[in-house]
């Protein structure tokens, strides 16, 4: 067998394997899409193309008795608040750690990185108790407020990127009489856009998909997030219900992230590489 032949056979095998894998990865999404357009009476039909095509599931989803719109709105504003809080406070700290020279900088940074080792469950119990005493359980405050006191992951990610911004810019700005805050706001924030975009996507994704925290802080339907709402509807299914409507809900709930993903795939993927490779 010639070398060229061997290579093309290997290519073919790679294709076949990747294709098989891709079907397994995308299949559940196609099933979700298909079921959400099926009639409830066809909910368990085993065809990918709906026997009868209908939009009723979506209509039912947004009808008054489910109040899907409220869930969607809650998820949206909470995720946006969390993202804004993280971007702002992590960038502030990352700038100090990457650019400014001050006493105790490295100790502080190490302490911050150590917090990555604390599982969320450890903070969840005391946080819950405090928020309970503040009578904030059932509101969205416990979900977004902690996003405004920084975080190790975001600060680390942004600091790594800020370190790559040329120092000459800072020196030049200093000569022109720029202050610390101006250097942060006028140089590092605009130039840090790629890393900020990556962090924004991660944070938004994490907040939008979070189940554990809303389950603890906003546990009752309808005033909760999409994830808790969907989990609740699933539970109701044991008393009979329409899987078609459930799938329509699942589809709508993943739509915002799918849209972000298709437009910002590069940031998504580079962000992961950024957090993974440059340790």
């Amino acid at each position: 067998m010639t070398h060229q032949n061997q290579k093309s056979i290997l290519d073919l095998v790679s294709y076949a394997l990747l294709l098989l894998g891709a079907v397994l990865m995308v299949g559940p999404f196609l099933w979700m899409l298909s079921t959400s357009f099926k009639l409830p009476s066809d909910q368990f039909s085993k065809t990918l193309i709906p026997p009868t095509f209908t939009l009723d599931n979506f209509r039912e989803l947004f009808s008054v008795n489910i109040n899907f719109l409220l869930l969607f709105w809650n998820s949206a504003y909470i995720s946006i608040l969390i993202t804004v809080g993280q971007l702002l406070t992590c960038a502030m700290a990352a700038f100090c750690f990457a650019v400014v020279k001050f006493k105790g900088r490295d100790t502080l940074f190490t302490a911050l990185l150590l917090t990555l080792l604390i599982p969320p469950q450890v903070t969840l119990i005391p946080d819950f108790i405090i928020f309970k005493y503040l009578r904030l359980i059932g509101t969205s405050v416990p979900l977004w407020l902690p996003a405004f006191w920084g975080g190790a992951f975001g600060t680390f990610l942004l600091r790594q990127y800020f370190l790559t911004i040329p120092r000459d810019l800072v020196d030049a700005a200093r000569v022109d009489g720029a202050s610390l805050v101006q250097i942060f706001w006028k140089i590092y924030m605009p130039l840090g856009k790629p890393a900020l975009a990556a962090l924004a996507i991660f944070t938004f994704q994490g907040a939008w998909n979070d189940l554990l925290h809303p389950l603890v802080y906003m546990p009752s339907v309808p005033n909760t997030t999409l994830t808790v709402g969907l989990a609740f509807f699933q539970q109701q299914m044991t008393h009979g219900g329409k899987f078609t409507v459930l799938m329509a809900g699942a589809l709508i709930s993943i739509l915002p992230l799918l849209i972000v993903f298709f437009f910002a795939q590069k940031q998504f993927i580079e962000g992961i590489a950024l957090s993974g490779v440059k340790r």
Partner: protein
Amino acid sequence: MEYGLKPLGRERFWLWALLTPTFIGLIFGALGSVIATVVLSFAKWDLLTPPSWAGVSNYVELFKDEKILLSLTNTIKFTAMYVPGVVIISLFVAVLMNRRIRGVGLFRTAYFLPAVTSAVATALVWNMIYGRDTGILNFILERLGLQPVCWLCTENAMYAVVIVNIWGAIGEGMIIFLAGLTAIPREYYEAAEMDGASGFHQFFRITVPLVTPSIFFQTLISTINAFQAYDYIYMLTRRGQGDSSVPVVVFSIYRNAWNFFNYGGASAQAIELTVLVALLMAFYFWLERRYVVYE
């Protein structure tokens, strides 16, 4: 890092202003929470009646209570299957994609899809796939002339849940490995080719040693994720009274605290989880010093 911008005069104030949120997070969010959880783990408190000291009884329970012990074994079993599964499969996928074949971009999007979308939403479909009487998987099995399987029953639920969790994690692992693979200089393979090394040899003698940093990183992240795994387990194995057919530690903590109002016991479990993760991390870093190749 000797160079650094020196704050002048009043800028000192602004420096600390910029750092204030992080300080609050460190003192209250991190340090305060850890101390509070440790203190709580020695107490009995349902948040309705006044708390009382429990001594080490919550910790004794960790080793005596069968449910808690079961949750620990479940977490360990889950991790033992999930971590190698994610690392091996995503490395394999990344190697295939790194072969510079056409349409890789499309494949990458497809494989990454589950990593983008919420586990809650996709778990709803997996529930339909795994269904005993109406599920797609059993439909396929029956078509192939095989016996249907009760995927989410106690005896199989662990495997079913591990599979879905791996499915959801391959996308991210693949990206980490692709980044590591593209960093390997092509010349190494060309030189190996000249010496007549087979593809098999090239993979184990060049690729694997040079991606050990990525393997290390991915193993670390996957282990942390395995200990935190909650969403799919909650969505696929939940039963009546907040129970689960695969109760892992994280699930058990939630149940203890928010279904049984046993905040002290749940805190002790949270501490147990932390210690376990810390020990594993220490072990990994010990392995890193011995086996990971940095150029």
